[in-house]
């Protein structure tokens, strides 16, 4: 049985902190769980924290982009936070620029980014 990545609820934001090496099955489970939780909690934002992630491959890269696309469809914005320099370089070398995914340096900044996004959309609405 593979480990599942926990999804924590923080106000109206879901926090996914990836602490383990991702296997393909874990990644697929995470996508399912995330979509499920966004709908049940009515979250308006998702923060994916990859501070502990040291190794990425193209599959994980695509997962991040997919997760962002799924969340957006469910009206939640995704921010990827804490990417390490080595990981960023690897993704660039792999040719993945994660278009459409918002990024922030730290969890704090990521949450601030979501907060700001909600404020501006509230102004509009």
């Amino acid at each position, binding site marked *: 049985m593979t480990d599942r990545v926990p999804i924590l609820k923080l106000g109206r934001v879901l926090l996914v902190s990836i602490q383990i090496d991702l296997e393909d099955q874990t990644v697929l489970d995470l996508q399912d769980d995330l979509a499920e939780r966004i709908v049940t909690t009515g979250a308006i934002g998702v923060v994916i924290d990859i501070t502990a992630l040291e190794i990425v491959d193209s599959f994980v890269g695509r997962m991040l982009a997919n997760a962002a696309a799924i969340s957006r469809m469910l009206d939640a914005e995704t921010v*990827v936070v804490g990417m390490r320099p080595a990981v960023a370089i690897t993704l660039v070398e792999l040719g993945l*620029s994660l278009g459409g995914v918002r990024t922030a*340096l730290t969890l*704090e900044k990521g949450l601030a980014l979501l907060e700001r996004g909600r404020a501006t959309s509230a102004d509009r609405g």
Partner: protein
Amino acid sequence: MAAAESSERLVRLLTHDSEILDRWVEAVAEILRGRISRAELERELTDLYQALGQALREGGLNWRAEEYSEVRALLVELSRNRAQHGFTPTETATSLFACKDVVAPTATSSAEDISAYLQLGRLLDALGLFTIEAYARTREEIISAQAEQLLELSTPVVKLWEGVVAVPLVGTLDSARTQIVMEKLLQSLVDSESEQAIIDITGVPAVDTEVAQHLLKTVVAARLMGAECTISGIRPQIAQTLVALGVRFDDIVTKATLADALRYVLRRIGTEPAATGGPK
């Protein structure tokens, strides 16, 4: 026991006259023309002379033998010193070869002495080559150490403002250097939690497609980490070259000078105060 006899004769050749060492030091001092102190030279050559005599007595003519390890160590040290003080290879090797002139046979020498001299000559030649090798090795070490220092020196990441870091690039960029710049910059973004980075290429004489590619990658990698990257200091000539090469910095902010870039970056931070996480 012909070998023992001949090495015996060699030792006698080298030590029959107490003035041999003095004449040797004299000859070497003349070649080096006072660029090394007399006392130091005397110490070096005395050590070498004694070690050589000892080795000849015990190890015969095979300079690779265990008995010669002290001679070899002394020679390595000598060539290291010479290389570090900027002496030429010739001057280094002659320190050893001068010994041959000192013990050279005269018209009254016996046939045994002459043949011993020839054997000693061959031994000293071999040791001389060994010296040159050590000399060259030291020089290479110096060169690679300098290259490494240059890499470290030339890529400082400076903090320009709260939340703004900059890398002023000076000198020719190659792939290895750009790679280091990239890694250092990204790491400093993490360490200082800066959301803005400026790469200033005013001091870069030429940019080719490969370097441009690396710059682009750096910018994209910074973006992936949640920071923004501005490139400044693109000189007119470089702009022309880049356009001619077909390189386009389309979705990257580029500014003519570092001042412009800083002004732009500060405005970005200023108009979006929440971006820096507010006052701390």
